[in-house]
């Protein structure tokens, strides 16, 4: 039944091409909602015992000459990821309710990304997984290059080339595994004993290839530019789902197929992950563009996922999977607030400019959502981010105590930049500028030396804007509430997912 998520999504995409544009967003909403409901039912209907192993649900010969099957399978990990895909997909459609420019095409590409992601999470055939993985690349390009904002063509091309570069590495790894083992079936490959020599080079090639998409340092630079350039729904999908494709496939394919290679290289993964966590958080602290702050925070949070993998124990890896779920929601929510609620209304994401507007009063719901998202992102207990990160850190304590300390400083930095962004964007001091006009030019001249008129217009805005902002629409409220509810639910009761994730992780080969 979960397989229908893929079919429904692609059917919806095809339907969009032939239906008139007035229906486009409704079709997209219905399609993604159907996907969400299907994956939620599948997750809670299948018994926990069955979720411990990677069980086949569909298996049809596809290209028998080459041993390629259309083979889908599920376990606790893939269903968790399917659920977050559904949640983020619905939310991203709701947050693009205002797309008027070529809406059919927009939702067509969006649904291709979603459908391809479902496909990656459910594939049990290496060829099929790679097919879905590559399928996501081009839609991302068009989503960003056509509907994006700042520097969109550059950001789109950079992201696409990085993804494709990762894909090329993955391709080498996949073919090497295929011609050695003579099979593409993940269940069979997971039993196959590859030689140590192949594992020693096959693992890094595959894992780094996938990790490009997960934003591993130093190959993360596509992420901030891509996120910033993307339209709101695009950044939500990127942060929420697409980055998880990389980490999921790294876990499912690279680590599970080449366990010895993983043991050889895992220290280096931990090093890169920790550098990524601290470095990205440090960079985020210095950003002035709200979306750049969130983009770097995504890299930092994905660093936790990779760090969790590198621990190579059940707790660490399960925490990493939970972090994928959690950051999917939080990242999407942060981008939704920054991109749709704030930028679409104020047409600026500059933190200094925003701080003059006092958005906390103008857009109380946006402020509320952003506070929740920030709290979850910082790892305040009660939200999913806390549950995930604490699990990772407990797991990591056994493996790399020193790294946990360094990661701790990273978490402090995360809190610092999140609070800074929160304060400047929503709770800036309006009165200081509105009253003391002399303060604005001196501050403004330094920051906007190219546009001398900006300080005055800025001062005008600060007085007028709060009334001009359109109200938060129903669609936005629904989307935000959906994400907030999910992150709170998992934060308060992480057992809900961990019970399903941990047995599946225990069944993986690299732990033994």
């Amino acid at each position, binding site marked *: 039944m979960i397989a229908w998520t893929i079919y429904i999504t692609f059917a919806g995409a095809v339907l969009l091409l032939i239906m008139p544009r007035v229906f486009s967003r409704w079709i997209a909403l219905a399609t993604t909602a159907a996907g969400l409901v299907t994956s939620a039912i599948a997750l809670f209907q299948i018994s926990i015992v069955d979720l411990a192993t990677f069980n086949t649900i569909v298996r049809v010969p596809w290209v028998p000459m080459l041993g390629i099957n259309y083979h889908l399978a599920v376990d606790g990990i893939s269903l968790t990821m399917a659920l977050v895909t559904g949640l983020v997909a619905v939310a991203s459609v709701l947050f693009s309710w205002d797309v008027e420019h070529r809406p059919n095409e927009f939702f067509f590409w969006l649904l291709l990304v979603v459908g391809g992601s479902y496909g990656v999470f459910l594939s049990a055939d290496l060829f099929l997984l790679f097919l879905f993985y590559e399928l996501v690349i081009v839609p991302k390009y068009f989503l960003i290059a056509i509907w994006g904002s700042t520097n969109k063509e550059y950001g789109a091309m950079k992201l696409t080339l990085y993804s494709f570069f990762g894909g090329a590495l993955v391709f080498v790894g996949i*073919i090497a595994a295929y011609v050695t083992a003579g099979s593409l079936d993940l269940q069979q490959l997971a039993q196959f004993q590859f030689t140590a020599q192949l594992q020693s080079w096959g693992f890094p090639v595959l894992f780094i290839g996938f990790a490009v998409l997960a934003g591993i340092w130093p190959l993360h630079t596509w992420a901030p530019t891509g996120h910033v350039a993307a339209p709101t729904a695009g950044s939500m999908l990127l942060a929420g789902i697409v980055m998880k494709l990389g980490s999921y496939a790294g876990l499912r394919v690279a680590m599970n197929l080449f366990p010895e290679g993983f043991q050889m290289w895992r220290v280096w993964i931990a090093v890169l992950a920790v550098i990524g966590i601290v470095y990205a958080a440090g960079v985020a602290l210095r950003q002035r563009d709200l979306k750049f702050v969130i983009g770097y925070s995504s890299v930092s949070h994905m660093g936790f996922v990779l760090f969790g993998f590198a621990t190579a124990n059940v707790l660490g890896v399960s925490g990493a999977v939970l972090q994928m779920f959690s950051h999917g929601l939080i990242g999407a929510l942060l981008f939704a607030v920054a991109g749709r609620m704030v930028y679409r209304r104020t047409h600026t994401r500059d933190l200094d400019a925003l701080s003059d507007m006092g958005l906390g009063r103008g857009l109380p719901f946006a402020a509320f959502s952003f506070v929740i998202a920030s709290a979850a992102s910082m790892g305040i207990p009660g939200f999913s981010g806390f549950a995930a990160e604490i699990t990772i850190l407990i797991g990591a304590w056994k493996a790399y105590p020193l790294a946990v300390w360094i990661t701790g400083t990273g978490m402090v930095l995360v809190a610092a930049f999140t609070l800074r962004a929160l304060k400047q964007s929503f709770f800036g001091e309006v009165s200081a500028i509105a009253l003391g006009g002399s303060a604005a030019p001196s501050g403004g001249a330094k920051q906007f030396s190219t546009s001398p008129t900006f300080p005055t217009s800025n001062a005008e805005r600060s007085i007028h804007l709060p009334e001009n902002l359109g109200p938060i629409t129903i669609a936005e409220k629904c989307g935000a509430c959906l994400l907030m509810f999910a992150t709170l639910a998992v934060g308060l009761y992480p057992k809900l997912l961990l019970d399903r994730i941990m047995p599946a992780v225990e069944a993986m080969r690299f732990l033994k």
Partner: protein
Amino acid sequence: MSYLDLLKLASPEAIIAVTALAVLGIGLASMRASGICSFAATLGLALAIGAVIILPQQATLLHGMLVITPLTSLFKIICLALAFFTVLLARSDRSSRNPGEYLAMLLLATIGLMLLVGTEELLMIFIGLELTSLSLYIMTAFDKTDVRSAEAGLKYFLFGSTASAFTLFGLSFIYGMSGTTGLTAIGQKFATQSMQPLLFVGILMTLVGLAFKVAAAPFHLWAPDAYQGAPVPSAAFIASGSKVASFVVLGKIVLVGFAPVHGSAAWHAMIAGWSPVLAALAALSILLGNLVALVQTNVRRLLAYSAVAHAGYTLLGLVAGGRDGFSATLFYTTVYAFTLVGAFGVVALVRRETGGDDLTNFSALSSRSPLLAGCMAVFLLSLAGLPPLAGFFGKFYLFSVALRAGASHGLLWLVALALLGSFISLYYYLIVLKVIFVDEKPQPETSPALGNLGEGGDFLQRLTLAVLAAVVVFFGVMPTMLIARIIASLP
């Protein structure tokens, strides 16, 4: 064997020859009868396809001068189908003033392709090559009003005749060493002989001519000019039909005739033979084609350089050798040919409406004609090797076969190079797609003519393009349909 038998078994070729003469006659009788001409040509091609299907699947004529095997039947059908689509797309080309003569040339070239595919004999191979080449030279230079067409024709002719001379010289060496012109007999002869330097000279010279036909670097220099200057249908046919047949015959020559001198192209374990030569050609083509394509601003020239790169990928299968390698090469080149006919079809329509085929002529195509834009996206993304299109599967098949071929992944270096190449290629394909889908404003000086592209264009061409795009998607989703046939037809 009676002449009646000969006529019966060679009926597809005979049908095409008669059609060519008929089309020529119609063209003579009335200069404006382009509709009737192309109808007659398509009819003849369709009849020929039917004749290939109903003929017996196994026959030998004149001691192997002409053979019929499942492989030859399959590729005759493919060549005929490519000619069929080219004829349909050629209708949109206003520049061709003498449609009868043009189509007759195209049909003669098709006969050449069928001879190439359907023989296992060095002399017939050469005759087929020459028949194809001479027809294609004329087709390239056909547009008398365009100086670039003449330049392209001359370049193609000069390079081509030199390459043919090399091949003929090489073939004479091979004949001298083996005393026979039948490929199978040559293979048996070489298996028992010791290797001689003269043999390698012969092989090398033979490969030169064929490398020219498939536009592998460094014998590609004619391709950019021919692709850009020739009338669009000619370029499409050069890039598709001629290429498929050349790969079939190249594969037959090296894998059947030269099988004993395969050699090895594995890293650190090179053994002299033809496969290191082909590996070097492939590596050079991939690098050069992709890198030079990066800076092109004319879509046809870009396609030409990408064709060089694709010739490099396709050679990978032959380097790997064996039945798997040959079938991977054949699958890739077939898919590539259909893709390229489609891409040139889009170029032809855009050129007709906007008067050029530079990147700027494509800007905002998606808002002018969503169908053309969508088809072009399918073709280009298939060339770039993205799923679920046929090019993706073709690359997967080729690269996995190549990696499996050498002991301990000996060809990994070539596969890695090919992947690097396809990584580079995505950039320039995306640039074209960016111009089509992302750029908003069409060029002001071309805008008055643009209105036609939306509605006024020819329905038949659009249908053909849609069918070709569907073929590319179909072979990507159900590659079995073609691969099973290819594998079954290989001995």
